[in-house]
């Protein structure tokens, strides 16, 4: 396991707890039920939700936000189901991802989804071939999309700028 003795920032715990969906980190008693239930932790050693919570408590901000750690989670809520503290490990995961994205650390797949959302108002759009097939079957081209309204909203929430500023990830 990496040596964590680089700069530890105790304020990181405060930062995550005050991020929406992040306050669950404070209820964690390190019991290990989430990591032993997580389908990903079973397959991959790097991903361990319990250890991630301990890293947040300790304040290893750099290790958590500037690596691939936030991007293993399936958001399948099994950990949330098993956590005796009603703590929100899965919810905290979203908080860390939001913070990571602010620092330019975005998993490629989600960045692509973001771009498609900003351009078309949807993540997935029917291909030309699919549109032809749908029309042949008497179906509409697909549900109508209020793209401009979406773009106005995303300008207000500055999601467009957020995705544009992607920086390379450390590990």
């Amino acid at each position: 396991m990496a040596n964590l003795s680089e700069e530890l920032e105790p304020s990181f715990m405060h930062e995550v707890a005050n991020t929406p969906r992040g306050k669950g980190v404070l209820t964690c008693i390190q019991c290990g039920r989430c990591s032993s239930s997580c389908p990903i932790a079973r397959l991959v050693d790097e991903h361990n939700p319990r250890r991630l919570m301990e890293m947040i408590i300790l304040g290893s901000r750099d290790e958590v936000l500037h690596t691939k750690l936030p991007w293993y989670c399936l958001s399948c809520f099994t950990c949330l189901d098993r956590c005796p503290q009603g703590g929100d490990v899965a919810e905290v995961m979203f908080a860390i991802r939001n913070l990571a994205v602010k620092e330019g650390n975005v998993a490629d797949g989600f960045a692509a989804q973001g771009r498609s959302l900003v351009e078309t108002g949807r993540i997935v759009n029917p291909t030309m071939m699919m549109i032809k097939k749908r029309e042949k079957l008497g179906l509409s081209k697909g549900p109508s999309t209020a793209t401009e309204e979406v773009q106005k909203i995303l300008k207000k929430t500055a999601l467009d700028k957020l995705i544009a500023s992607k920086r390379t990830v450390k590990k």
Partner: protein
Amino acid sequence: MLEKPAVLIIGGGISGIQASFDLASRGIKAYLVEKSPSIGGRMAQLDKTFPTMDCSMCILAPKMIDCSHHPNVELLTYSEVKEVKGSAGNFTVKVIKKPRYVDLTKCTGCGMCVDNCPVEVPNEFDEGLGMRKAIYMPFPQAVPRAMTVDKENCIECGLCEKVCEAEAVDLDQEPEEIKLKVGAIIVATGFEMFDARRISEYGYGRYQNVLTSLEFERLLSASGPTGGHIVRLTDGGVPRRIAFIQCVGSRSQRGELPYCSSVCCTYATKEAILIKEHNPESEVYIFYIDLKVFGKGFQEFVNRAKTEYGVEYIKGHPGKIEENPKTGDLIIRYENTIDGKVREITVDLVVLCPALIPRRDNERLAETLKVELDEYAFFKAKDPLFAPINTNISGVFMCGYCQGPKDIPESVAQASGAAAKAAEEIALTSSKGGVDSGSK
């Protein structure tokens, strides 16, 4: 005013017995009301006790006998408190003696009736693992040493009545109402076990080889359903690998019990040592969150389990248990949080340590006594630090697990404390009441 000072004690477990014996020994009449057919409480179900490994019944039975033989103690078993009126120093209590359908003065507990009774039902004393007849004595050392007829399951064939040489069976006995005048009341109703079925990921109630610790204690006991042999319930074989899981329902903020039941880490250690004594090559694992070793001699007890017996303590609460339907083996998924590795281990038997919770009928009893319960439904102390034994009603005291999680020595000490507070109450109210009780 009271002719003779008397105290009502509700609950015949070790706390109730100790409080009654203390009061009786100093000349105060003790009415000990116990809901089940015999006093003895939870301790009677245990095989051994920590940290000394005394056989539980061997140190409990003499106390039960001394208590029941004491001239100042009146045992009201198979009875319940129905109504309480009056105030400190002068309570009037109505107790309902449920019909036992056996005359206590005649029955000597010889067991002829049991041999002839055709009806077999699961025995609550064995947590349902063993069977008992419709006419039964909960356990061999029961006090009073007499049979009780369980009318729900009795088919009224009358065989027991026929074979009883002492003519003690009386199948048309009626409930009896008794009125008592007491100066103080002590509540000692003990605890129940959290229903481990509610933690569905551990499969209790679905997987046969997942037991609760009290069921396992019955397997360990010589008076238990297997005469003290530890067996797998699926195939009756001797289990080689056994895992204990702590905090099942305890320390949980998601709708189960948010507190620590205090005794499970230590009794799990005891049961682990007993397994190793029964079968030295067996492997025993204890999965825990924080090992609670705070009591006198507890840490040394755990050290012995680790070094002398080789019990393995793993800091990591398992996420799930799966059953191999063919073999009945159990696959535990856990993370050893010390080395951060997520692993699987296959064991023959899993023993869950469920939370210990207040008795369900504490609500009804609290209403009868007009005492407050706390948010867990334990009885609420007037002041947790300086008046832990007083309730909000003067003259009504409490001791043992019904006040909060504690082990046997703390319950016994607190039971003596309740006896002191009751005696103090009687001394104060009787001196106020004019007639000098002579003890000043």
